[in-house]
């Protein structure tokens, strides 16, 4: 696992319709120590996805620096695993081959990467789905595959942009429980984008509140682990913290 550091990061988009430049992010600084889980929340349009896409290397940044383990980011790379809101599984590959894709790109032989993929699928309770195609799975199962596909490539940092936004509420809570468990076992460095405040608090060590392109607040979450919804739904400290963050987001 590695640290993720954003230093005075900014992003200016060129607006084709207006014919003018538009600053989406000004001067974002954020340090995520190795093995820490940080959630970023904020109202729609405040620049959450922009941050994640720049860290992933999908779009260039306009100013400042992005460092992963001290190294500047230049384009996408296997050191940063990404989980997409739209799952982004390869429809023409089986679940097993989707999960084995990262190892395949590293040149791991077929038998070995199948073994890796099976091990990760087992972790997400998906062993039975290995030979199926993504379209044969429910949304919740697809996103489990999305998460283990990213993990199976052993990234230094895991980036997630509203990964559970397109599944139903019940499934979402199960997935949050599972992600929490997986994080506790493996301790990856995580940057997790969401606009769901309870989700952000439930999962993270710290919640960063973003407002109109800058950091409004950085709230630590000192709730003990392991965290499961069964315990936390009624937990006063959890509720209080959630309300506090919610108030910050509202004021943003």
């Amino acid at each position, binding site marked *: 696992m590695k640290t993720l550091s954003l230093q005075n990061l900014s992003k200016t988009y060129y607006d084709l319709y207006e014919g003018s430049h538009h600053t989406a992010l000004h001067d974002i600084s954020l340090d995520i120590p190795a093995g820490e889980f940080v959630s970023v929340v904020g109202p729609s349009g405040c620049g959450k996805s922009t941050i994640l896409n720049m860290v992933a290397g999908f779009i260039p940044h306009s100013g400042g620096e992005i460092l992963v383990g001290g190294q500047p980011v230049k*384009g996408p790379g296997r050191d940063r695993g990404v989980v997409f809101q739209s799952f982004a599984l390869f429809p023409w590959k089986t679940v097993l081959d989707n999960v084995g894709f990262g190892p395949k790109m590293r040149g791991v032989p077929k038998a070995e990467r199948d073994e890796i993929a099976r091990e990760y699928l087992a972790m997400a309770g998906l062993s039975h789905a290995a030979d199926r195609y993504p379209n044969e799975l429910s949304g919740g199962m697809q996103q489990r595959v999305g998460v283990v596909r990213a993990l199976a490539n052993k990234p230094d940092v895991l980036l997630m942009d509203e990964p559970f936004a397109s599944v139903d509420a019940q499934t979402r809570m199960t997935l949050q429980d599972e992600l929490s468990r997986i994080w506790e076992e493996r301790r990856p460095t995580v940057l997790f984008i969401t606009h769901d405040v309870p989700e952000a608090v439930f999962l993270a060590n710290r919640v960063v509140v973003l407002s109109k392109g800058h950091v409004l607040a950085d709230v630590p979450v000192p709730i003990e682990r392991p965290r499961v919804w069964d315990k936390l739904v009624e937990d006063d400290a959890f509720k209080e913290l959630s309300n506090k963050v919610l108030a910050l987001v509202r004021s943003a």
Partner: protein
Amino acid sequence: MVSRRILGTMTFIAPLALLVVIWGIVVPVFQVNPQIFPSVPAVVQAGVNSILNGTLLMHVGASMGRVVLGTVLAVLVAVPLGILMGISKGVSDFLTPLLRFFSVLAGIAWIPIATLWFGYGFGAIVFVIFNGVFFIVVYNTLLGVSTIPMSLRNAAASLGAGRWALFTEVLLPGALPNIATGVRTGLGFAWRGLIAAEMIATNVGLGYMLFVARDFYQTEVIVFGMIVIGTLWLLIDRLLLAPFERATIERWGLVR
């Protein structure tokens, strides 16, 4: 499933069979001149003869060989080009006007110049087939690449895929349903072009078979040839191209 397929085939064949029945009645009843239109038995006889003396096989073999070679060459060049256009706006902007222009000419408009370049026969006709398939496959590949969600390309890149892996693992399979559609449509045009080209530029093949029979007023050979041309295409299309297209769309096509 099986019985539904048989039923489907029956409903497809029934109108054609009816046409043959009407033909079988009309020709003797009105005593049609065989130099205008042949009778059913005459056509059957012509068919049997051409099978027995091997000429049918010769003509079909020649036509199919040209179609297969022209199509394979066209696909091999068109798919990488279409993908390149799909990922590079510069290449696409540059080539699109050229494609638009030449796709209008695709087909038999090329025969005169093709015969000057390749001589009468195999080369010129393969070139015509190539032309018929090429442009439509380039265009469909381009379309296919543009339907691949950006997130799939991003996912591959962040899992460590380089340029080549992106091509073989994402762009090519992602565009495959559209490529299949392109090949199917393109071959439909190329098949028509083939017959026309063979009438002009060769001395063997189904088109030539029709054209020569005309010189001898052998309407039964002409009609038999027309039946072969239509039937062959339906077989190729229904047994090969359509199932391939359907399979890729079923397996892949859930993104769209």
